[in-house]
């Protein structure tokens, strides 16, 4: 009797969280999958079953493929750099140095600012001629360049904003992890005559691996999730060179109102992210040392 009570009690405690999870995560995911096999209802024409038609359209859609390629470059550009930067910043502000608190705040500030506001500020950084970037390059006598308006630099520019925005956020996790490392390890290493570099490589980095794992998953997800600055800065232009997958989903769903095709695109995003997360847990987990 008491056991059943405990069970009921347990489920009741879980219920609110589970209800919300099901309502806002699982149900929409399933509904999206179902919708992706139907045509888009238009006015008097109801949705009808079209099988894999939406997916066939996707294969022939050059903008979709370009968005996939852009997104891969975006991921390759943002993830390693922002993680490396986060680690460097954390190691730096973990040391005893004057104005440490201020430095931490400075590094963390980009994270708390809303992306829309940030993107509007960066828009003016990149402005040709009198933007901040142009004023700096102008000092060195470099010619003016239309950073967001040319095909070669637009994607790199939005990558830079994402790195700037993310690195501070990841730094907080590294900082927390660094504070967990017992000082006795550093003392022991010093007694053994290990160099600082050796201590870093053999002790600190392995102990940071669980954090790196966590940060990596977040970074990958974010690289497919961050689109606010695209909407503000380039709207996917010029000629789709900064169109990322999620931005394209938004465009198809809420500008073209082709909701069925948007559902199919969303499924691609879901599957990609699920595979990435799975792969990371399966492969990286083995090489990660948990305390």
């Amino acid at each position, binding site marked *: 009797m008491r056991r059943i009570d405990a069970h009921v009690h347990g489920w009741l405690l879980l219920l609110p969280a589970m209800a919300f999870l099901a309502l806002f995560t699982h149900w929409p995911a399933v509904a999206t999958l179902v919708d992706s096999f139907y045509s888009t209802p238009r006015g008097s024409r109801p949705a009808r079953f079209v099988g894999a038609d939406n997916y066939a359209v996707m294969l022939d859609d050059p903008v979709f493929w370009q968005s996939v390629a852009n997104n891969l470059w975006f991921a390759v550009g943002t993830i390693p750099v922002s993680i490396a930067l986060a680690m460097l910043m954390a190691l730096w502000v973990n040391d005893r140095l004057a104005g440490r608190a201020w430095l931490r705040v400075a590094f963390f500030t980009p994270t708390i600012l809303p992306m829309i506001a940030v993107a509007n500020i960066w828009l003016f950084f990149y402005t040709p001629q009198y933007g901040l970037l142009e004023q700096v390059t102008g000092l060195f006598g470099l010619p003016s360049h239309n950073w967001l308006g*040319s095909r070669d630099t637009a994607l790199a520019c939005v990558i830079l904003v994402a790195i700037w925005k993310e690195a501070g956020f990841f730094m907080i996790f590294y900082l927390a992890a660094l504070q967990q490392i017992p000082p006795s390890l550093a003392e022991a290493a010093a007694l053994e005559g290990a160099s600082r570099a050796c201590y870093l490589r053999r002790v600190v980095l392995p102990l940071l691996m669980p954090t790196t794992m966590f940060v990596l998953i977040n970074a990958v997800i974010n690289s497919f999730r961050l689109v606010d600055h695209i909407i503000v800065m380039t709207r996917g232009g010029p000629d789709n060179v900064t169109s990322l997958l999620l931005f394209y989903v938004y465009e198809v769903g809420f500008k073209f109102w082709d909701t069925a095709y948007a559902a199919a695109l969303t499924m691609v995003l879901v599957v990609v992210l699920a595979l990435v997360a799975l792969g990371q847990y399966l492969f990286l987990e083995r090489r990660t040392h948990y305390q």
Partner: protein
Amino acid sequence: MLVQMLKTAGLAAAGAAMSVAAAAQTVEVPFYFPVAVGGPITKLIDQYATDFSKEHPSIKVTPIYAGTYQETIVKALTAHKSGTPPVTSVLLSTDMFTLIDEDAIVPIDNFVKTDADRAWLKSFFPAFMTNSQTDGKTWGVPFQRSTVVLYWNKEAFKEAGLDPEKPPATWEEQVEFARKLTKRDAAGNVSQWGVQVPSSGFPYWLFQGFTTQAGVELMNQAGDTTYYDRPEVVQALQYMVDLSTKHKVMAPGVIEWGTTPKDFFERKTAMMWTTTGNLTNVRANAKFDFGVAMLPAGKRRGSPTGGGNFYIFKKSTPAQQEAAATFIKWITTPERAAQWGIDTGYVAVRPDAWETPAMKKYVEGFPPAAVARDQLPHAVAELSTHENQRVTKALNDGLQAALTGAKTPEQAMKDAQAEAARILRPYKR
């Protein structure tokens, strides 16, 4: 004591019943509106709703601020799909075909019954009505409409040895003036460009100025055919591309729409093309003498119109629709159209609004305000078709490809036309 309580309760119940009866007579009209220009738009709209309710106590108009144009149509269409759209909303005039295809709106003709109503529907500038009518029916009522004009810096003109009171009137003059206005240092770095036509976000709108001037339309009135690959369109694009590549009087690449007014204030460009909606902004922020002119002529003068119309949604009661129509007729009287134009910078939508004392006084004190009106006879409907955003994107992508040098103008327009034709195939009759 008990009797007292019962009495009070009875009175309260009677009062509640009475207010229910009153509510049944009041028609609720939820009204979505976007804000796309600076200024206290929300305050103005709220004031209109209050004034209207005073004159029509049986109708309660509730204005609901819904964000940008894009956010407003997302909200309105999502609400339509879930069954409870607003009764009326201001949305882009180019959204007409989208709203018709979604079966979301009713024709305005349903509410035009008397001679006075018919006269009202005929009272708008024809240039604004072309974007509001298709298939012999009227689907939208012009409200906050705009057009593209040229702003020029009179001081820069003086410095360059040009007549500061004479803006370029033709394509040739535009190039010639711009060449004189472009300032280069010894190393070839430009500190002031001659002219700037923004090309981010919705380049098709400004490009439509060039195509109209080249003497060609971009689509038909039925909204099922585009003419992106006509020779005149290619010629217009060649002219636009040449401004930066051949004549080197405009910054190369895609030029941001949002920072263009600031470029003008910072004297980084001596002339700019942008919306009349920026008039109040420029007036407040330009620290030099500026002028506003019609766009220069190619074969002819020309500019697209832009901005928002009133629509009435289908999924509401007939009483609500009638009430919304009453409100729309009320807010587009000459006096109110004039006041709205003065307060916001939008073009007052009917000729007789420009004859009102308030508008006459305003134009007298600030003549640039009338340029948009004078350009209207040359204006054409903004690009709008079925599957509007997608068909427009095909053109936008082509324009940006040509402006960034990835494609020749000819190739870019050929590809854009092929894409648009593919999208529009199901709508051909």
